[in-house]
Each structure stands twice: as C-alpha cells, then as structure tokens.
C-alpha cells in the first residue's frame, strides 16, 4: 500500500493506493493529481483563469459551455431539484460576494441585496448554452466539483488497472475495493475534540462525505460565518453531518444540503450515519 499526501481544492488530500510497485503507484497518483488540478483550474470560483470565473464575471449573459461544464451544471440542477432547492450552485455563488464584507452590517446589506438573484431559477441550460436572467447570479461548484474529482479519480484508477485505493480529498472519501482484503475503516472526527473519533465506519466501494461548519469558515468582525451559506428560511441545527452514498458526489451534495436544512428527507440509498448538532 502506497500513501501520498498533496493539496488540492484548498484542502489536504490523501491517497492510499494498492499497486504492484512504487512506479505504478507514482504514475497513478500523477494522473489523479493532474486531473484534480485541471478541475480546480477550470472550476475554481476565485481562480481568475478559470472557465467558471469568466462566466461569473461575464460581459453578456449567454455562454456556450464545454461539455463537461454543461454536464456539471446539469448535475447540479438535478440535485437542486432532489433537495428541494436546498443545494443550489447559484445560492452560494451569488451570495459569496457578501463574504468579502469588512463589517457585519455590510455583510448583511450585500447578502440581502443579492438574495433575490441567488437561485438556479435565474439560469437556463439548453444543451451547452447557459443563459443568466440577470447580471448578478453567479455559480459556485463548492460541494460538487471536489466530490466529482474523487469519483473520477476512482474511474481513472480503474482505467489503469488499480483495484484498491482510498481517495480522500479533504474529507470527501471514496473507498475503492478493499484494504488488504478487509473493508476500509474510516474514523469520523469529532468537531469538538479533534483527537477523538465519533465513530468508525467500514467502507467497501462506497463513499463517505462529512460536511461541517467548524473547519472552513470566514470571519467578519470576529463572527465566524460558515463557508456553507444557509438560505434565509432554513435554520442550522447540524454542525456536522456525515453521509454514506454510492458516489462521492451524492454523499457530498446531501451532506452539504443537510447542514443547510436538517429536515430534508433523504432518498433510500443515502444514509446519514453521523450528525452533530
């Protein structure tokens, strides 16, 4: 088993790869890192050279997207529907501007002003053509693209003949195959006591995502504001939620959505295995 650490999507990433030799493992890791970096470059919200940045900082409101970009939007809109509008790439994207405020008053003013535009109802995808209804709606693939990268990493490993690996991009985890003929064991960290695990989960060909407010946040006037921006009507009662799902995208989206609205009813194949209030 070969272990690698690197950073992508602003979080530490870890790969455990079962390979026949070091070179094979190194090659596999290079492919995964390259792919993750490409996604980061294409879809980073703040990355000025990204395709996403160009669209968010647009001159006109109609754009022809690459197939992959259009596919990601389509995927996001699917989840917006499945989560009854809780998971919404236009919500966090549009309201992100409020996080640049230097005072809480400014933060609330910007947020309130932009809120009417912070919905996927303001975007229309027709084939590869994306049209915004206004100049203010923006898209953010947070909660989706990192998870998408994890799922694709599994496919990339499959393509090169690797049969066992554990991929962890900042808490978005895919367990591919087995670990020395046993399920992978994942410890879910206690957000209130980082040296302790809340529980251990056994994973085999499944994904686990944990979303929380405690690790990633913005700070305005010493007030911590979660990187996951809640809707105005929803209330926060989970500080951390861990979801088990067949794909990392599924797990990531639903763990994010549950933080925003803990009353969501999960589909049968999505399992909430740990939640901290």
């Amino acid at each position: 088993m070969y272990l690698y650490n690197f950073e992508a999507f602003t979080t530490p990433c870890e790969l455990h790869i079962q390979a026949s030799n070091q070179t094979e493992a190194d090659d596999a890791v290079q492919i995964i890192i390259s792919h993750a970096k490409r996604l980061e470059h294409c879809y980073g919200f703040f990355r000025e050279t990204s395709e996403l940045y160009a669209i968010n900082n647009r001159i006109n409101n109609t754009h022809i997207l690459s197939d992959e970009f259009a596919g990601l939007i389509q995927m996001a809109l699917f989840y917006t529907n499945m989560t009854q509008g809780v998971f919404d790439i236009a919500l966090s994207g549009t309201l992100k501007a409020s996080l640049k405020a230097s005072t809480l008053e400014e933060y609330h003013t910007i947020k309130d002003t932009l809120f009417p535009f912070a919905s996927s109802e303001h975007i229309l995808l027709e084939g590869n053509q994306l049209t915004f209804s206004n100049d203010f709606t923006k898209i953010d693939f947070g909660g989706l693209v990192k998870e998408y990268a994890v799922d694709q990493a599994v496919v990339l490993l499959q393509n090169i003949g690797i049969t066992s690996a554990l991929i962890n991009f900042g808490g978005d985890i895919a367990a591919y195959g087995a670990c020395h003929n046993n399920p992978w064991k994942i410890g879910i960290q206690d957000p209130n006591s980082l040296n302790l695990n809340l529980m251990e989960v056994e994973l085999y060909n499944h994904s686990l995502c944990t979303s929380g407010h405690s690790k990633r946040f913005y700070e305005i006037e010493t007030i911590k504001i979660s990187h996951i921006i809640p809707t105005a009507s929803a209330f926060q009662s989970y500080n951390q939620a861990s979801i088990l799902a067949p794909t990392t995208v599924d797990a990531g989206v639903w763990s994010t959505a549950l933080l925003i609205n803990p009353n969501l009813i999960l589909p049968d194949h999505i399992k909430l295995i740990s939640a901290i209030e």
Partner: protein
Amino acid sequence: MTISNNSMMASQMYANKEVQAQSGASGTWTGASQGAGMDFSAIAQQLMTTMDTNKSGTLDKAEFSQAAQALSKSSGKTDTSGVDAAFAKMDANGDGQISSDEMMAAIKQATTQAQTQKPHHHHHQASESATDGTQANSSTQASSPTNEMQKNLFNKIMAAYGSSTTTAGTTTNISA
C-alpha cells in the same frame, strides 16, 4: 477524519485552518519517490531554467516554441508543426502555462513510454487516455475520455436514484 485499516492509522486529513478565500491550492505533491533511478525533478528544473526566459517560473507557449525552434535548428529539422500539440499535451491543466510539475510529469511519461518493453501496455494506454482527457476540458468532443467518465458517473448516480424511493423531489433525469 481518519482513515485506517486493521493495522494502520493514517494521518488526520481535514482542513484544519481558517478559510479566508478559495485561492488556488499549490498542488504540491509530497508523495513518495517520484521516479525509479532517475531524478525527474532535477531534469525538469534544469529544463525550466533554460527555457523560462522571462523567469516567471512557468513556460508560456512563446517560450516553449522558442526552445523547440532552437532544438529543431540544432538537430537540422525544420518542421515545428507539432509544437502546439506538444505544448497542449504537456499543459495538463490547460492554463496556458507549463509548470515544473507538468514538465516533470511529461518527462516521466516520455521516459516511461520509451520503456515499452515493460509489460505495461494496458497501463500506458489508459494513462494516455486520461492525459488526453485532461486536455479536452474546453472541447466539445462528445467522445472524449472526460465526457465518457462524466457520462459513466451520471449513469451511476441515476442508477442509485432509480432504485431508491425518493421523496425529496420530483424525479429529474440527467441525460448522459
């Protein structure tokens, strides 16, 4: 979050830092050995130093072309039509710049491909596909490896919802 198997506990892997902005990650790879018997990093660094005429730390297409032309002259070749393709292939993340990491990866890949006597045919074929996929981000080729991977993921997601009693929203298909 921790990862373990029966005998091993891996390091804590969660961003334990304040996030002020979603700035780009450095992507520094601190993994295990990066080559078998060959210091790819040193070779890449040497080439970067030579070719990076404006000392920006990366190679743009002009610098790359300049180096390719110089190489062509010295080798007596005049055909430089493959420069654009070579640049695109090395520019794995498609940002228009070749970083030292990308240079190292390209050298390593070229070295590995040169060793085709090794029984790794399936491996190399797949690696090449993946590399091609990373360059197809802005294209609209329906059959690119990236699109195929995305389609497969869509299908997997939809298969899960197809077998699930979903009450959260009305069913919407993702057309792959």
